[in-house]
């Protein structure tokens, strides 16, 4: 393998994807004018959030997310060593590059950070309660945005109320409101996140000083929450499965399809009706849950594809009927967490150390629920609403002949949508022929071809010049990018003895046949007793965690959502192996050691 990664300027366009740059913002792609800077930086591919080539509109949420992170580090909190993160899209894939703060600024930044972050830490619970209100209000605002076909005649009320504006202006305004809400959402997201990591890292650093050999996993276990919103969707599935068993209506689930099941449920009378209404209650908000990272308009969402939660509930019912215990052992989890904390506490060298340990653990536990829970509120719930609203806007365009199908809206860049809306608005107002119906379908078709070509391209895990040592704390925490993982990528991932190395995401050892899948669509291929190997996993895959032995992913760090969920479900997991899905074949026997972060191919 080469000594370094390809320079950005060396990356070639895959055949059939010529002109792919047109799918994204002019500023978001590598550019000859900036090549000196770009080639000098280190760029790692973010497969955790964007495992496939980005759709043009989906790139908007990526850009807002990265800007949100950056502005908090750089302008709001002044995280002493870390500025924000620069991004580029290469052949459709997102590459990130941490921007360090200038050495000379660090003392000044430390002073500001102490004051600003200190305020958050001191008032965390109050601010977090307020955050939960803000985020719910934002979802409400998003829900209130209507995108409907423009009426032939405005309602009389529009005129008599003296409002002075109409549907054409409103649909434009609503699109901008949606963009604003998305921007607000991502600022909210990073209002707390990196502070949560910072307190976690402080406890982490203390533990590593007191016990140089302590594993990252042990530290994570001491901090992890027991009741976590991110696990609530799965909890609701289990609850509904148990309710079906308890009320004797499980036969309805043998129908196999949602419609048949619901019909059979209604036929059972009040028990079935109660179950359906309980399902509907749980669905809002808990089934606004993406089968992917939440960052793709193409990933399925439970509430819009109720066959997904129905299937999971059906599996849980079978499990219960065969005497299985599907309840999360929260008491045992709490007891184990207490045991771990008590034993390490007892091993500390002095009462001062024990006091400091307790203080830092206390703060980490105060802040960590945000780290665990925000993912549901932002990437799953809010994004689900955004994707839904965008599809309803797409339906307006489709009805006006601009698109073949509503989903084509995601083939437009975010700033192309206002242009198309203006076209629609104008043709409605005049009325006069719009250009859209003859303009967009060709472009969309070509873009779909380009995306297909881009998806066939195997993205390099990184580009440019690797740093001597990775020190940027959030890069390590969230993406699992360490000096080790970079060396691992450069080595092709596999050592001489057929072992892949990754992050020790969740402890334990398991051996079994591999099941390699590349996305949520293949999740039903996973069989009992297999080891799941995937580019990444999503929290919404939790319902199959009961039947697999372990998880291996290509991407992700200790704090990636996959890692958090695996720890919660007590499943051995190795994340960030770089190459597991390309080196392991379905059916091969593999051994996963989550405690040492290794995966061994045994066949």
């Amino acid at each position, binding site marked *: 393998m080469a000594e370094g990664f390809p320079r950005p300027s060396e990356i070639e366009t895959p055949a059939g994807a010529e002109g792919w740059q047109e799918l994204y913002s002019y500023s978001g792609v590598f550019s000859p004018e900036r090549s000196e800077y770009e080639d000098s930086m280190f760029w790692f591919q973010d497969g955790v959030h964007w495992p496939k080539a980005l759709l043009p509109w989906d790139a908007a949420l990526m850009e807002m997310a990265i800007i949100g992170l950056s502005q908090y580090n750089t302008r709001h909190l002044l*995280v*002493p*060593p*870390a500025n924000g993160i620069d991004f580029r899209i290469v052949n459709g894939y997102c590459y990130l590059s941490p921007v360090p703060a200038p050495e000379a600024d*660090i003392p000044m930044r*430390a002073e500001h*950070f*102490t004051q600003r*972050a*200190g305020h958050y*830490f001191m008032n965390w619970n109050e601010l977090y309660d307020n955050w939960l209100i803000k985020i719910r209000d934002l979802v409400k605002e998003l829900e209130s945005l209507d995108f409907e076909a423009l009426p032939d005649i405005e309602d009389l009320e529009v005129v008599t109320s003296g409002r002075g504006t109409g549907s054409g202006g409103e649909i434009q305004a609503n699109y901008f409101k949606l963009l604003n809400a998305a921007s607000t959402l991502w600022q909210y997201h990073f209002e707390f996140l990196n502070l949560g990591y*910072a*307190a976690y*890292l*402080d406890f*982490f*650093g*203390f533990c*590593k*000083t*007191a*016990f*140089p*050999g*302590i*594993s*990252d*996993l*042990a530290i994570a*276990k001491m901090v992890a929450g027991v009741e976590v919103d991110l696990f609530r969707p799965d909890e609701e599935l289990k609850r509904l499965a148990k309710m079906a068993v308890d009320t004797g209506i499980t036969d309805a689930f043998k129908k196999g399809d949602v419609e048949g099941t619901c019909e059979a449920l209604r036929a059972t009378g009040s028990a079935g009706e109660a179950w359906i209404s309980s399902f509907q209650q749980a669905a809002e908000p808990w089934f606004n849950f993406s089968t992917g990272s939440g960052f793709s308009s193409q990933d399925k969402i439970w509430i819009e594809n109720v066959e997904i939660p129905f299937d999971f509930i059906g599996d849980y019912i079978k499990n219960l009927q065969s005497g299985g215990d599907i309840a999360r052992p929260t008491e045992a989890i709490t007891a184990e967490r207490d*045991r*771990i904390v008590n*034993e*390490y506490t007892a*091993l*500390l*060298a*002095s009462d*001062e*150390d024990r*006091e*400091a340990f307790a*203080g*830092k653990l206390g*703060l980490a536990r105060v802040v960590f629920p945000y780290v665990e829970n925000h993912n549901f509120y932002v990437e799953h719930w809010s994004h689900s609403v955004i994707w839904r609203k965008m599809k309803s806007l797409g339906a307006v365009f489709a009805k006006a002949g601009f698109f073949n199908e509503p989903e084509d809206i995601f083939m437009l860049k975010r700033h192309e949508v206002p242009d198309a809306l203006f076209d629609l608005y104008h043709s409605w107002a005049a009325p006069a022929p719009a250009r859209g119906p003859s303009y967009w379908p060709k472009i969309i078709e070509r873009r779909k071809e380009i995306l297909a070509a881009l998806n066939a391209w195997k993205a390099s895990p990184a580009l440019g010049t690797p740093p001597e*040592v990775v*020190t940027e*704390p959030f890069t*390590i925490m969230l993406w699992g990018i*360490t*000096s*080790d993982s970079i060396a691992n990528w450069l080595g092709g991932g596999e050592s001489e003895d057929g072992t892949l190395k990754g992050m*020790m995401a969740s*402890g334990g*050892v398991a051996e079994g046949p591999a099941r390699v899948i590349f996305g949520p669509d293949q999740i039903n291929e996973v069989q009992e007793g297999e080891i799941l190997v995937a580019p990444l996993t999503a929290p919404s895959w939790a319902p199959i965690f009961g039947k697999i032995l372990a998880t291996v992913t290509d991407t992700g760090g200790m704090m990636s959502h996959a890692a958090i969920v695996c720890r919660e479900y007590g499943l051995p997991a190795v994340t960030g192996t770089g190459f597991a899905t390309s080196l392991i074949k379905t059916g091969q026997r593999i051994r996963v050691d989550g*405690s*040492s*972060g290794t995966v061994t191919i045994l066949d």
Partner: protein
Amino acid sequence: MSHHEESVVVWFESYWPGLKNEVGGKASSLGEMTNAGLPVPPGFAVTTTAYRHAHDAGDLDAMIAHYLHRLDITDTDMVHERCHAIRERVRAVAIPTEVESQIRHAYEELCRRTNSVDVPVAVRSSATSEDSPDASFAGEHDTYLWIRGADDVVDAVRRCWASLFTDRATCYREEMGYEHRSVEMCVVVQKMVHPKSAGVAFTLDPTNGDRSQIAIDSSWGFGEAVVAGEVTPDNYLIDKVMFDITKRVVSAKTHEYVLTDDDHVRKVETPEDRVLQPSLTDAEIKGIARLAKTAEQHYGSPQDIEWAVDADLPEGENVILLQSRPETVWSKKGPKTVVSPGAKAGDFMSSIVSTLMSPLHTKSD
């Protein structure tokens, strides 16, 4: 024998403190260790009850009184002659059949448990004394190693009984005015360790004093090779709390000490296919770590233990503690604190800032 007080044989795992007088100091400490989760090589005690039965059946009192009548303890020739005569007679004593058959049955049971024919055992004396709480003279008594077969075991038991009448022990009792009857002999029969692998373990990481880790050095065969530093052992680190194996270094173990057919320990070259093979399974590593952790808890300070994985014992019961002593190197240096003593707690922001500034302590190897 249903009654504890009358047991002729007490297995280590059945020991309870009420039996202390019947089994003597050595057997009771083995029993205590077994019950504390510190498994010593398996075995049993032949209690003072057995001794008493044999003693009474053979009318040894009269015989002993006869030889010790007007003994002059300053006359070493006389002492030697008379004690020798007593020992000869004790060694020839007829053990009541009921008692002897229980000893034989216990030995056969040990063979069955260790899946061996005529398992080699160590037979050790363990004296008790009503007169002297400090039965320190017990150390004077004999130990017989590599005893095989029920006949030889029974014979060794008699020899241990006879060892109550060594010249020194006899003179000591005479001098102290202790009744010879007040001293009774229990005998410990314990499996000889037959290590598949053996070595040492520390309940801290010897490279940095990290008390959250257990370090194990292991090699094939008897532990001599590791203790004497003659081989580079396999090295493992286990997290004491999580029980994860956090480090494994498998080395070339060129030599091993093995047991020859005539029960001798000999240094040989390790067969080629085992030189680079790990000397422990994961289950064994965790078993040793559990043992070390238990020893640390039991003795209340970091320990330095010697252990063996016995080839004759079933998995799960094959990790054996040979010795546990306080760790000295790091314990001498005193506690290694994170917060300097007397530092004021509180300023969490400066700690967070410095955490963010310093390169992360994430895994670097």
